Structure formats: structure tokens, C-alpha cells
């Protein structure tokens, strides 16, 4: 069984100086991400969202924590598990639902599906379905910022397999060589599809040594702890801006659901990991653990209000999306 190298809920105390409003804002983002994904999870079996969908439930703290430190003009790219970074960068939920439902009002007019989201005005430049591309594209956006002498940074969200592709190696070497202001967000969730990385494909693979061997600053962070994610990525982003150098962060996290689709693996009798393991990791839930911290602070009521509000709002938006129009013949050949 794969265990976390960190203790549960290690520490949120660094967030103590934050105002109540700020703290609730963070929780808002975490819970909102979770709930949107849960709506998709629940609706997916109805066969209305006909597009391969990779849910991020369990990994919310990473995108929320990183994106809290970004500016609207920074550039974000993501791999296939794209919903969370899209949501965290304030991409429209209506457009997300529409995209999944194949509607004209989707973020990509229905042409892209779950793996091709974008919200350019929010800095979410795009997600793609081919492993590694997000890494190269983000580096390219960073190169553009550098050439344009802008102070912005670019960010790539990606997982284990993307890192294995030669593309990532080439890109990291380039970014190191050319001083590209890019943050590499490596979501290490211990699995690629149904392969446990640490037994399988990445058995001898040491990201820290490799990344450092390319001259790039490397950090390892508990990806389920919003406080850690927030402060470490803040540090990284400051570092990038100050030194115009890339930074690579390995976030430890865990995906609860199956690789592609809405179910728990154990419910489908897939045996590449045990129910016990999933249950173990649920104890590291980034949303619940932070909620506990806030409840200890006495924000009980605010939280349940906030949750109810989100639930209602998101459900309404989903219904609206269901009713919105499908793209038709005249849309087929536009924007080629």
C-alpha cells in the first residue's frame, strides 16, 4: 500500500495570521472545486457528458494553493486532468459544464471536451490531451513573457507520465538554459492510469536528482495541505520573478476516483489498488482537513452557509448548461 510521506493535516498554523475573510475565501475555493467535480461525478453516468473525463477529486489543494498566488495575466497550461486548474483560475463553471455536455456555450464551443478547456481572460491558456504538451507549452508562454519583457510567469500542471516523456526533459533543460520564468507543478499522485508509479514505470526515477541535474530549483511539498501548497508556491513564484529562473515543485497527492470516469476503482472491481489504500488517503482529504481547522477556529456557521450557497449555485448552473444549445452545422467548420 502506498502511504503518504507526510503526516495528516500536518500544520495549518502558518495561516493563523490570515483574516477570517481570507481563510473563508480559501475554503470557498477548495469546496467549490470539490463540489463542481462531484456534480460531474454524479451526472456523468447519465451519458449526457459524452467526453472522456478525468476528475481531480482529492487533489484540490494544489491548484487552489498555486492559483491563489497567480495574477490574471500569468499563463496556465494543464494536462488532461484539467478541471481543477481551470476552476482555480476562475474559469466559468457554466462554460465548463457546457463543454462537457458538448454545448455551443462551452469554453471551447463544444469542440474540445473535458481535456481541452480554456479561459484565456483568466490566464487559463489551455489544457491538452497529449502527455507532456502542457510542460512545453507553458515553457513557451514563459519564453514569450521573457521576450516581451513582461514580469509574468507561466505555470504547467501535469502528472507522473508527462514527466516521463522526453519532452519534459528537453523542456526543463531549455528553461534552465534560457532562464524561463515557469513554475512546473508536478502532481505526483502515485499512479498513471492503473500503474503504480513507484512499483512500475518510475521505480528508479528520482525527480529531484534529475531536475537538479538540469540546474533547476526543486521543492517537494505536501500537496494535500493547502497551507503548505500556498506558502511554498508563493515562495517559488517570488523566486521565479526575482531570479527569472524556473522552479519545479513535486506535490504529493492522491487521486480518489478511477483514471477516467466517475467511479471508485474498487467499485468496478479493478485491483490495481485496494479500497483500503483509497480509504487511507481519504483521511488526507485537502478539503475536510482544512475545514476541520476552520471549525476549530469557530467558523462553523459561515462554512455551512457557504457550502449551501455553492451547492445551490452550482446545481443551478448545471441545469442551465443542460438546457443550453448544441453546436450545429454552421459551427462545424469555423475556426479551422
Amino acid at each position, binding site marked *: 500500500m502506498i502511504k503518504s510521506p507526510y503526516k495528516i493535516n500536518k500544520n495549518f498554523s502558518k495561516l493563523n495570521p490570515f483574516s477570517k475573510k481570507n481563510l473563508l475565501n480559501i475554503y470557498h475555493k477548495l469546496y467549490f472545486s470539490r463540489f463542481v467535480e462531484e456534480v460531474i461525478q454524479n451526472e456523468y453516468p447519465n451519458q449526457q457528458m459524452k467526453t472522456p473525463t478525468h476528475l481531480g477529486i482529492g487533489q484540490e489543494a494544489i491548484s487552489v494553493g498555486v492559483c491563489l498566488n497567480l495574477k490574471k495575466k500569468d499563463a496556465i497550461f494543464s494536462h488532461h486532468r484539467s478541471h481543477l486548474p481551470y476552476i482555480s483560475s476562475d474559469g466559468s463553471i457554466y462554460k465548463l459544464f457546457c463543454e462537457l455536455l458538448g454545448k455551443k456555450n462551452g469554453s471551447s464551443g463544444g*469542440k474540445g*471536451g473535458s481535456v481541452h478547456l480554456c479561459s484565456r481572460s483568466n490566464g487559463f491558456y489551455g489544457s491538452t490531451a497529449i502527455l507532456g504538451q502542457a510542460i512545453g507549452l507553458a515553457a513557451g508562454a514563459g519564453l514569450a513573457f521573457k521576450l516581451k519583457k513582461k514580469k509574468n510567469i507561466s505555470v504547467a500542471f501535469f502528472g507522473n507520465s*508527462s514527466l516521463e516523456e522526453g519532452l519534459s526533459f528537453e523542456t526543463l533543460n531549455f528553461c534552465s538554459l534560457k532562464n524561463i520564468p515557469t513554475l512546473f507543478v508536478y502532481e505526483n499522485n502515485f499512479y498513471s492510469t492503473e500503474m503504480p508509479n513507484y512499483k512500475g514505470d518510475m521505480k528508479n*526515477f528520482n525527480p529531484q536528482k534529475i531536475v537538479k541535474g538540469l540546474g533547476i530549483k526543486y521543492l517537494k511539498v505536501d500537496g494535500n495541505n493547502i497551507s503548505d501548497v500556498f506558502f511554498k508556491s508563493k515562495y517559488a513564484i517570488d523566486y521565479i520573478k526575482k531570479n527569472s529562473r524556473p522552479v519545479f515543485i513535486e506535490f504529493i497527492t492522491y487521486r480518489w476516483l478511477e483514471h477516467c470516469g466517475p467511479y471508485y476503482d474498487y467499485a468496478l472491481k479493478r485491483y490495481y489498488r485496494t479500497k483500503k489504500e483509497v480509504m487511507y488517503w481519504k483521511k488526507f482529504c485537502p478539503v475536510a482537513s482544512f475545514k476541520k481547522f476552520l471549525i476549530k477556529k469557530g467558523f462553523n456557521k459561515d462554512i455551512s452557509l457557504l457550502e449551501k450557497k455553492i451547492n445551490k449555485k452550482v446545481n443551478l448552473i448545471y441545469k442551465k448548461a443542460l438546457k443550453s444549445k448544441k453546436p450545429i452545422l454552421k459551427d462545424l467548420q469555423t475556426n479551422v
Partner: protein
Amino acid sequence: MSKKIISYSEMIGQAITSNMKKNNKIFISGLEIDYSSKVFGSLNKPFEEFPSRFVQTPAMENGLCTILAGSAINGMRPIFVNNRCDFLLLAFDPIVNIIDKWNYMFDGNAGNCPIVITAVIGRGWGQGATHSQSFHNFFSRLSGINVFLPTFPSDVSRVYNYALKTKKASIILHHRGLFKIKEKQNFSKKFCLSNIIKKGKDLAIITFSYGSIQSLQVSNKIEKKFGRKITILNLVSLNPLDKTKILRVAKNHKNILLLDIDHDEGGINDQIFNIIKTNFVNKIIKKIGYKKIPAPAAESLEKLYYPSNQVIYDIACKLLQINHKKNKIKTDYNFVGPY
């Protein structure tokens, strides 16, 4: 035994397994190959029988294809399995610069490179632009690689038996809509580049892969409704192309319909058009292919992007000078996702 019904997917597994039994140089490699679905079930049987001859790998299409080519040059017979044809783009360098040319560049002195590359062509259920492509039109232009697109379990059987024995490399592309196709297992074992899967004098359709399935559905309907009979030539191999058979079919038909499962300009349709027209000036030829745009994800657009049975039906009827107007025919493509 010989009357057993077998599916396309099972046939892949059976063909690979029986060849593995005979030849211990055959092994299987790819990423995600021990994924529980085992490429729509097609690898279940070989995996059960020869788990140790599976080389599951990290995400590294370029490296893996080069490595497997190296193993083939050194006497092995790798089967490089890909869950999508699109991923092969990352391996175009070893495919084109090594596998295609190894024999020629060294004038035969550096050995052969008998790798078999298989890949699934995604279609429908929101696969989108980068999980639904097929590069048969590109691969067919190479000189050192066979390109096969089997349609039926019988094609699968013959193609694998051939590909796993010949000295040349082969690319085998499986359309996702075919894995559940069933057939009685009493078919001929003799390898052939193409086969006539339906005979008729009124029209000839030359097509392959999922195009053959759609053509059958359309032809059956036309036969039932109007008694008009259609010949369907199923091109199992696009490289080499069965020019003899194409010309024989063309000779016997005034009207010919060409159906590609990619967009048509500058592809195999044009090549066949040329072959026919160069020999028979007066044939009436119509071509069908996808629109020249990437595949959209939304279901409503997918339906417009992929030629429906209706589109094929209408054009076939036009060629046959049948005025049907109100007749509708469904497209029977009911793949259920997500992957």
C-alpha cells in the same frame, strides 16, 4: 470448433497468442498495456498465457518505438501496442527514419526490422481532435512498412499471421468501432491484400476498416429496398495496395464509390481514383471522406463530421439513379465511453 463465433477483439488475442506459442521471439510492449481493459479486451488472452512476455513501459513513445526497433534488428519480434493512433506521432522518427528504411539504407546488410505496430483509431464519444486520428494515408506512402486495416475477425487472423511472419515491418490499425464485430471462425487462412465482402453488379464500393461496415449496412438496405446489388471491395492492406483487384472490380462496374475513414483530398481515395481513371477513362467515381478539419468533440458535431450511413446511402442512390427522397437510414455506431 471451426464453427465457433469469435469477435474482432478475441481474434486479435487469439491470433497473437497462437503466434506467440509458435515463435518465442514475439513479445508485446506499450504503455498502459496492463490497463485492465487491455485494449478493448484484445490482449486478455496473450496476457493470461504469457504474462512474462509483456513489457509494460513508462510514457515514452519515441524511445519505446526506437528500442523495440532495436530489439527487432537484434532478432526479436516486438508488437508495439498503442491505445491511440495519435500517440504514434511521437514515434514518427523511428517509424520513418529507422523502421521504414533500415533494410534499404544498409542494403540488407544490417538485418531486418520486423516490428509490428498496432494502434486504435478512436472515433466518437467526444474523443476530440487528438484521440481520433488515423495516419494510414501517411504510412501508406512509406516503402518499407506494410499498412493493414483489418475489418473482420477473418482479416485480423490473416493479417496477424502474416505480419508476425514476414520480414517487413507492419502497422496494423484497428478502428474502435470494430472490436465487437463477430464472425464464424470457419474462414480461409490464406492471406490476401483485399477481399470482396459482397457481390453485386450495380455499383462498386471500394473501402476499408469501418468504411466496410458502413458500406455493408448501406448496401443491405439498398438491396432490400430496391433490389439493387452492390459490390464491396474491402481493402485489408493499403500498403501494398491491391491494384489488380481494384482494377478487376473497376472493370466490371460503371459506377464506383470510394470511401476513406479520413478526409479524402490527397489520400488513398485520390490514389485509387488515379489507378482507375488511368485504366478506364469513363468510369463514374464518387469519393467520400471526412471534412478537412480536426475532429470536434461535441456529439452533435461528431454526427456531422463523420459521414453517416445516410450520407453514403444518398450518394450511392444517386450513383444508382435511385430517387429515394424520404428514405432514412440510421448510423449504427454505438460506442459507449469514456475511453
